[in-house]
């Protein structure tokens, strides 16, 4: 989505409607208010460390919007944490968010650059010293000490072009930005 030109090869189909995205980009350039989005989620505690999160509505393009359906996500912790393991851990969901964002970006950029994808698989690992979350050592951070993402991509393109795709997807990824740069978080009690 870096270039305003039309897709180079109309035969390439990654299932991404680049034309619509480019049109939206052009329209939004003159309507900055419509570009202001607010994403929402709710999370209900179930029991123990098990929670169910839901996403349905969001705001953008100057009005209220809805997903086609409500999506739910279970989160919990594994049994070695004395939990019942009803879902992924929250930190795994963060990795899921990062992988999904980068992969979606790769598909979009590939479409725009006229690169046909056959398969894309991201494999992620996040390292964590749980001395942080257990409060054993205040010098150890709670979060990941590092995240590694590795892509296996089969596409009609040179290795160099594929690496450029991956680089561009990081440059325009919301989740990559959220994880790599600080952001203000305000937590209140109603």
């Amino acid at each position: 989505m870096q270039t305003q030109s039309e897709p180079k090869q109309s035969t390439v189909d990654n299932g991404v409607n680049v034309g619509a995205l480019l049109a939206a980009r052009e329209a939004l350039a003159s309507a900055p208010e419509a570009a202001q989005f607010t994403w929402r989620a709710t999370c209900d505690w179930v029991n123990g460390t098990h929670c169910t999160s839901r996403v349905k509505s969001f705001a953008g393009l100057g009005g209220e919007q809805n997903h086609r359906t409500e999506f739910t996500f279970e989160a919990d912790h594994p049994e070695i944490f004395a939990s019942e393991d009803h879902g992924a851990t929250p930190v795994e969901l963060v990795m899921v968010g990062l992988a999904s964002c980068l992969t979606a970006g790769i598909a979009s950029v590939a479409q725009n650059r006229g690169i046909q994808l056959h398969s894309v698989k991201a494999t992620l690992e996040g390292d964590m010293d749980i001395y942080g979350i257990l409060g054993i050592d205040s010098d150890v951070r709670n979060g990941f000490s590092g995240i590694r993402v590795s892509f296996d991509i089969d596409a009609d393109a040179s290795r160099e072009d594929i690496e450029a795709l991956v680089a561009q997807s990081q440059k325009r990824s919301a989740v990559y930005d959220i994880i790599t740069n600080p952001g203000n978080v305000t937590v209140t009690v109603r």
Partner: protein
Amino acid sequence: MTGLSLRRIGPASPRRVDVVVVGGGQAGLATSVMLRELGIDHVVFERGEIGQRWRHERWRSLRLLTPNWMCRLPNQEYDGADRDDFMTKDEAADFLCRYAHRQQVEVASGTEVTEVVPERDGFLVVANEQVWRCRAVVDASGAFGRAKLPPLAAEFPAGLHQLAAADYRVPDQLPDGGVLVVGASATGLQIAEELLTSGRRVTLAVGEHVRMPRSYRGRDVYWWLNRSGVLHETIEDVDDIERARRVPSPQLIGRHGCNMDLNRLQDLGAEIVGRVVAVRGRTIQFSGGLANHLKSADLKMHRMLDRFDQTPADGLDLAPPDRPQASRSPTAPRLELSLDSGEFSSVFWATGYRPDHRWLRLPAFDRKGRLTHDAGVVRAVPGLYTLGHTFLRSRKSSFLYGVDEDVRHIAAHLRRYLDGAFRERVAAMD
């Protein structure tokens, strides 16, 4: 284990003494007084002069955070006229000198201990290239020997002037331009105020901190901490002693009627930001968790003031509760500061101090390089003691006010240790 200086000096006839006390500050002087009362042969080595850190190694405007009535040491209560004033740093050093003089404590000034190594039945101590053989060592070198900088400090861009609180004296030491002050405990806030008053732009990076008003209901906060029992809480009273020892120094200044808090600094023009989390090239990044740190500190402060309100105060004339206002925060705290923006030219590290134990070459340290001890008794090395640390035995341990009790405990243990009959049990656990 044998260090360079020992090898250089060689084994030539060491001098003998039962106990070597390292440090001629409040803890060392008090230890000497108590050891003498117990008839224990000892020497006190001080690398500089009595009260060296107060007189020569702190910023010029510093005053004690505690009022004069809390300036007491074994066999000496405060006997001056201004019980509620706060000593300047030089007055604090004078106080220690007067104490040493009155109690006739002999201190070997200008005698730097460079090495302590184990030896059969005791220790070898190298001081001013002279070797001493002793049975026990009391580390009274203090908790604030050198600056504690976060590992991130090493990543700060070259060309940025960096100064740690331990090396700061007056604002003129810093180059022209804005200052990023890192750390929002007593030191960070006091220096930030001084820099603002000197006309500098100040950005203050705020992490976990302890908010405390100077006075409450007409009484100094230390009057309340004393009366409510907080100061007297011991290591048995807290769930997690490691955590209690990590609590940063409260946001205070030794000045009547002054609440040295983040609201005051913002009124003076400081910009507050979250704690430093990363350095990216020439850009410093701050946590987006400032709101939580402010909220947590306010909650803890109110919990403490609630406790003050519950303290029996029969017959005392107390003013009505006067709670400080909630901590204010910018609506969207800044997350980055770039060296290229011209907004700052130096970084001031007010991230605390740690003991300087480099001379102590003994297997008594934990994986983070901290001297391990149990209420001042170093179990891993029988015959080694330490004191003057935050929450050594109680919340008042690091204050002049708390030295007396700690020193009596340690001196008594030391007496039993030297008496020998007790020795084997000590090695296990007493």
